[in-house]
């Protein structure tokens, strides 16, 4: 636990709309970091573009605001270089499932130890409400002149198919529960996704607070719910159970930890099979010079190229 004296949020005025789900998310994130004892200088928040991408600007931890869709590769580069840092991604469903979908998929394949907080509101808020990748087919929000003719992508299923080892869903207005989910996601060793249902009171008049609150429930309140794969042979059954939950939407929407696989090595552990000392000496810790001089001899390394 980090003292209440230490600030996680910046003094900056937050220019989100009143009632925005982002207020809940930033508060939950602050609480999670504080409770986990991660000081501001050891955490990095990497943001995309849009309302969600403003999170790093409103936080007092290391902040890297990036490009639309690109926070995952930037976060990956940071984590591989300095693994001691807690690396978070705050990005919208447009960022992760639209323009940056290739990066979202690749993150699952790599299983780098980063936590992705997916601000899932079904609209492109900052450009005034266009349909985004999670908005349902034929839904017409008030900002749209005609109903949406694109079908939605299911972030839980996509994450599962891509190999994410931690998949959870939270709700932006349930700050305490969301905080617990984020804590579990951070503590998980591997790529973690928290799909955060986030009402956009300004542009999404379909997926509203009321709409969500009539449907959401927590999976851990069900008897015998256990999403954790401890042994490889459990994988199929656990995935089936997660798929079933992921398909629930119109009547009931499950929240909580939906899937966790502890049997898959994290990316740095995979790199260790190639560079045995990489976890003790990640790129950041490696010296590259002595008194400004190189520390290698070309002919000593590249003996395969020597002709003599």
């Amino acid at each position, binding site marked *: 636990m980090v003292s209440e004296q230490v600030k996680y949020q910046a003094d900056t005025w937050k220019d989100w709309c009143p009632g925005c789900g982002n207020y809940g998310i930033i508060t939950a994130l602050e609480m999670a970091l504080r409770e986990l004892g991660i000081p501001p200088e050891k955490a*990095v928040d990497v943001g995309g573009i849009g309302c969600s991408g403003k999170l790093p600007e409103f936080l007092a931890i290391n902040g890297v*605001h990036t490009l639309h869709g*690109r926070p995952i590769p930037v976060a990956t580069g940071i984590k591989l270089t300095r693994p001691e840092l807690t690396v978070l991604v705050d990005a919208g469903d447009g960022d992760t499932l639209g323009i940056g979908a290739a990066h979202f998929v690749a993150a699952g394949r790599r299983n780098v130890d980063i936590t992705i907080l997916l601000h899932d509101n079904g609209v492109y808020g900052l450009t005034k409400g266009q349909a985004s990748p999670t908005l349902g087919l034929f839904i017409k929000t008030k900002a749209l002149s005609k109903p949406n003719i694109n079908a939605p992508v299911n972030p839980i299923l996509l994450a599962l198919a891509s190999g994410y080892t931690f998949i959870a869903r939270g709700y932006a207005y349930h700050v305490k529960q969301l905080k617990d989910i984020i804590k579990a996601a951070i503590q998980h060793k591997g790529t973690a996704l928290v799909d955060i249902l986030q009402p956009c009171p300004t542009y999404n008049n379909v997926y509203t607070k009321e709409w969500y609150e009539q449907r959401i429930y927590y999976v851990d309140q069900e008897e015998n719910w256990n999403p954790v794969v401890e042994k490889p042979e459990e994988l199929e059954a656990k995935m089936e159970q997660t798929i079933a939950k992921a398909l629930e939407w119109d009547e009931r929407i499950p929240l909580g930890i939906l899937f966790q696989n502890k049997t898959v090595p994290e990316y740095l552990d995979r790199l260790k099979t190639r560079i045995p000392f990489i976890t003790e000496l990640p790129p950041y810790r*490696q010296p590259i010079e002595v008194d400004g001089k190189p520390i290698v001899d*070309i002919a000593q390394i*590249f003996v395969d190229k020597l002709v003599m």
Partner: protein
Amino acid sequence: MVDLVFEIGGPQGGGIESAGQIALRAFMLKGYRVYGTREYHSNIMGKHSYFNIRVREDRALAPNLPADIVVALDAESVFTHYNDVGEFLVYDTGVLSKDIDSIQSMSKYLKARVKEELDANGVPHTVEGVIKLLEKRGKRLVGVPLRSLLKTTAEKAGVSLVSISRAINTIGLAVGMSLIGVEVEKLQKAIELFFAGKQKVIKPNVIAAQVAYDYAKQNFGGIHREVIPDGPHINTDKPRLVVSGNDVVAMGKIAGGLRVQTYYPITPAADESLYLEKFEDFPLTPEAAEKLGLERGGIVVVQTEDEISALNMAIGASLAGARSATSTSGPGLSLMAEALGYAGIIEAPVVITLYMRGGPSTGMPTRNSQSDLFAALFQGHGDLPRIVIASGDHEEAFYDAIKALNWAEKYQTPVIHLLEKAIANAMKDIFNPDLSNVVIDRGKIEKNPPKPFPRFKYTEDGISPRAFLGDTVVWYTSNEHDQFGRRNEDPVERIKMQDKRLKKFETAAKEIPLEDKVTLYGDPDAKITIVGWGAVKGAALDAIDKLKEEGINANYLHIRMFMPFPSDYVKSVLEKAETVIGVEGNALAQAAQVIRMFTGFDIPHLVVKYTGRPIFVAELVESVKHILRTGDKKVVLSLGQ
């Protein structure tokens, strides 16, 4: 003075690559400098591929034609290269009756041109027809029964014919080598070096070489041609390496302290990353190991999902404190345009090694070009300077790779290091690089950074001290920002921050020495100046030598840095010359336009080549003479298959 061209061609994926690599090593063991350019298709197996190897005593930096010896391992090579033959053609007697129309892998356009020439000379469309034509031309023709020599090799090695089918390349190569008196022992040593550790491959190839030499001795009276003497670099204790441009950049990056490399597979860049991956865990020098208490270094090489990710990931690594780079070619750079601007505004040090190939779009992916200069200079939106350097040969590429890493960190900017396929895939001998004068300069780094940290502090030289993510609290944003990296669109602060970013490049322009930016080769008072960049260097240096032999005094202005551009110096050299000829490997004469933009000097004569093939020395010499004779404004080169 020995200046030999040895060309060997055959089907891709059938051992032609190995034959070329072995030939290079054999000529090195004979004491020569070598340069081997490779031409190949975007194909794994079956299409035609060849090596053009230049062998010289002092400097081998460019391909040339005609070739003293052409070794054609199959019928397609005969049809493709018979016009390259200077003196000898070594061919397979087993394909004499082969008709050109029966060769599926050959381009219909080349077939049509060849048939036209064969018809005009009244010979049939077969290998035999070509041989007759070459006889008329007075060429020396060396027919070798490759299959039967392969059979002899298999018998002697006690293995099946099928298992050593690729040794047919060695037989053809060995006959070619025997003609100029490269000892069989040298060829056999070259085989051992190239296939190091693979005894099962070495043995039949060593035997194949002997079988071929024995055959040549019996049938061609040993040696047909004047034997080349031992070269000046024989048996010296100065170690030499044989490297491609891709290899040598990887070596430079390791020497320069690279710790994270990202890439998406693309020709002709990917081999650099694969080579880095091979040596991702490498030994430090004993002295460094003792001082640091550390035996090894390691480079994290990440194959990303696309080039967008590659540059963004390298930027992330850079912010966290690693020297990072990515490597790509034109189409990849197009995808990186967005992140290039990002690196620019957040002042992230990152190196993009850009290997040019024929464009636009997919273009000619395995062919040479210098057509991405505009892209390197102007890719990306906004007021976005960057450092752009172009290497002219393998040795420049090595040191430039290190300098690029230094400049990226010192000036906190993306650096684009331009190379071309003609360097990337060309093999060259280099001496073990001397690192005693190499410096690793990480620029301004704050040792005790305050929290929060003014990452973009206004300074005299425009360069703000860096702190890495995790050293304190550091903020970055792709938006315009204040000194603390917080989004800010105040008009007054905007001017200060934009000017600060531009100021860095004025500082770089002042601090980077002229010799890293431009070099004038030859007589500074010559009345003719050839201006070029990149791999034009090799052809131009040979060209000014050859022109001198013919009484024409020209010098060569080699431009290495395009941003910041050495405007004053370049302008002074160009204005001093009576005749200025720009030479480059693209259709728009991009460098000539860039020179006009930065100096106001309009280059009056241009020699351009955009066939996808490198510039050969002979055609450059001819084009310069043509311009001097006619005053023509533009010559388009087209030599080479």
